């Protein structure tokens, strides 16, 4: 990847991150919380677009979302580990590892079968989780309050500090992802999406790329799940239910696979709708989301990421 491009990406990311951190000081606590959740969902969405670049849509990211959340939760309640950054990192690694094990099973399938297999995986995990009473069964359990390098923040700042931590960690992850997308395996994924047979004939392995993508998606999903659990302070098997997976797909389709920030914007949109739905439009929020999804599939098939790409391309050509 050309050095100039890499520099641009890092520069833009640092700018965005600093902007968000500064803005976070002035906005109310509930909005900070919403953005933090949007970041969590966005991470999972990033995982799906990683797979989408390779031509696959996973309908079962709830699987890794749940594993990440429960990992963070169990480490907190059983091992007393409450450092947020550590939990996010460990969840990323552990869930990625699980993804690596499962990936060969799923990577041979395409299209509908991949989608249904991933869905089935998440539902099997759901069925297991609601039956294990030791970790709360269908009620789930409460996560202990998180600490940062041993310090336990006071209640007024807890939301903001988690917000800052998630922005920083996600920023780093996003930069690495953008680097990955523009690297050889990342570009091969795009080729696989176009024509898998040709890729094989040209000497690369679609299978390997898919396994790699799946592992990364798993890690991202796990990190998102951990963040979501920590932000809420609670985790339950609903994390792995198919309707949750559906929300991640919604985010990815809305965002498209062309731009990383677009995914977080789409996640933020979903979170804002969800946040206000309880009070102001409980009967119609799913309808709004459904209509939104259909419209965006029809009119913005490449997702809102295509708008972002125009911004960045203009900057690149300066």
């Amino acid at each position, binding site marked *: 990847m050309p050095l100039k491009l890499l520099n641009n990406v890092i520069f833009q990311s640092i700018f965005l991150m600093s902007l968000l951190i500064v803005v976070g000081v002035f906005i109310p606590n509930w909005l900070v919380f919403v953005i933090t959740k949007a970041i969590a969902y966005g991470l999972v969405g990033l995982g799906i677009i990683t797979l989408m670049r390779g031509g696959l849509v996973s309908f079962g990211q709830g699987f890794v979302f749940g594993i990440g959340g429960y990992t963070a939760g169990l480490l907190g309640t059983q091992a007393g580990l409450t450092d947020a950054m550590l939990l996010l990192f460990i969840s990323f690694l552990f869930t990625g590892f699980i993804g690596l094990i499962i990936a060969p099973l799923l990577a041979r399938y395409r299209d509908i079968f991949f989608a249904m297999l991933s869905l089935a995986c998440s539902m099997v995990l759901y069925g297991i989780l609601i039956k294990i009473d030791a970790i709360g069964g269908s009620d*789930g359990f409460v996560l202990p309050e998180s600490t940062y390098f041993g310090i336990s923040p006071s209640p007024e700042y807890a939301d903001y500090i988690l917000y800052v931590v998630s922005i920083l960690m996600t920023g780093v992850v996003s930069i690495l992802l953008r680097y990955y997308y523009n690297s050889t395996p990342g570009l091969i994924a795009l080729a696989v999406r176009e024509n898998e047979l040709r890729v094989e004939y040209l000497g690369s392995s679609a299978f390997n790329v898919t396994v790699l993508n799946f592992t990364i998606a798993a890690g991202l999903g796990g990190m998102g799940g951990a963040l979501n659990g920590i932000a809420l*302070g*609670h985790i339950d098997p*609903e994390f792995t239910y198919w309707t949750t997976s559906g929300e991640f797909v919604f985010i990815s389709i809305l965002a498209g696979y062309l731009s990383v920030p677009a995914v977080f914007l789409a996640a933020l949109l979903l979170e804002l709708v969800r946040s206000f739905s*309880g009070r102001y439009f409980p009967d119609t929020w799913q309808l709004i989301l459904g209509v939104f999804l259909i419209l965006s599939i029809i009119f913005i098939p490449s997702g809102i990421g295509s708008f972002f790409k125009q911004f960045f391309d203009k900057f690149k050509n300066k």
Partner: protein
Amino acid sequence: MKFFRHCLILLSSMLVSLIGFIGVTSADDHKGFKIGVVTFLSGPAAEPFGVPAWNGGKLLIKLLNEGKVPAPYNKKGFGGMEITAIPIDEAGGATKQVQEFRNLVQRDKVDAVLGYVSSGDCMAIPSVADELQALTVLYDCGTPRVFEDASYKYVFRTAAHAAMDNIAIAKYLIEKGHDISSIAGINQNYAWGKDSWKDFSVSIKKLSPNSEIKNELFPKIFSGQYGTEISALMNSKAKVVHSSLWGGDLQSFILQAKPRGLFKRTQVVFSAGDHVMPGLGKQYPEGVILGARGQYGMMAPDTPLNNWFYKAYMDEYGVFPAQPPYRMVQGLMGLKMAIEKAMDNNGGKKPNKDEIAEAFTGLEFEAPGGLVQMKLGNGHQAIQPHAIGKTAKDKDGNIIVTDIVRYKASCVNPPNGINAVDWISAGFPGADC
């Protein structure tokens, strides 16, 4: 430079619209008392449970604001402050409810949250409540574990928990001489269902050690289809079938089991069976032993306060109040009592959450269902008297409750400091009947 410009424009427009929205939504009402009310307004639990509860709550709030409630609740609103309520739907699961709770506290800036039917939500909310330092009154959920597994500063439960329901039913069965040589249970697969069955089965085993447990079924909550389970229950030929099913699930179960003769072939006991009576009307089976989770509905005591409430609800909604509105009203009355006590202590100003919490701890107050005493959980968990009865048909074919036995609060509730299950296993030491 175009990039920066685009970013700036985008960000500032978002900020402006957000600030505008926030300004509109968070009207800070200093004069009155704002409460968030959370109960099931959609889904299987709405029509038999959440909606009647909110109906009762709405009615009481209206009458309180008008000052038309009898003593000791005759002050207008809460100590003179007008009550405004924001109803929120409890559907969607514990994770969603945590979010809604945060919205109520951080965005809508309510002074207190009153709510929660589902035991699952009651296990998730309290730690968030204490983290956000938000005064929270749990008005309904049943799992004993809320204050047994942990203790909280700002969270109170104004109604007795499920142990009372199941202990009382077990005692009733024995006192009335029913055959309890074998029992079976169908309960929902979550905290409420599991704890209810545990409390009941352990009580029965303690009071009648030779009883055999034939079948323990735990279908998923809101499953709604019990054909196979009904077959299993009938096949087991247990003498008593226990269930803590509630809401739409209970309605479905009754409708599916009745034509198959379950209620004729075995003694069915419902630990929370009254709230589906208004909906099912004459379809409700006879001969069912049930509890209403307190002296509510047809088992309510003959007191001036209850008679007033029963009539007010009946006049307004045309149907008698079962447990949901009683419990919501109980929560509101407890909150009112605590607030007014705090105001007496601080010279009449609007009390803050610490002052209310202090007044609430160990509080005792009269409610339509009897005397409520915050005795357990270090003063945060209520106990109250109970009643168990049996359904029968009256001369017009309507379903009524007869054979009512009343239990003192200290007879069927564990004392402070011991878990319900441990108390039952130890043989109910210190029970005052």
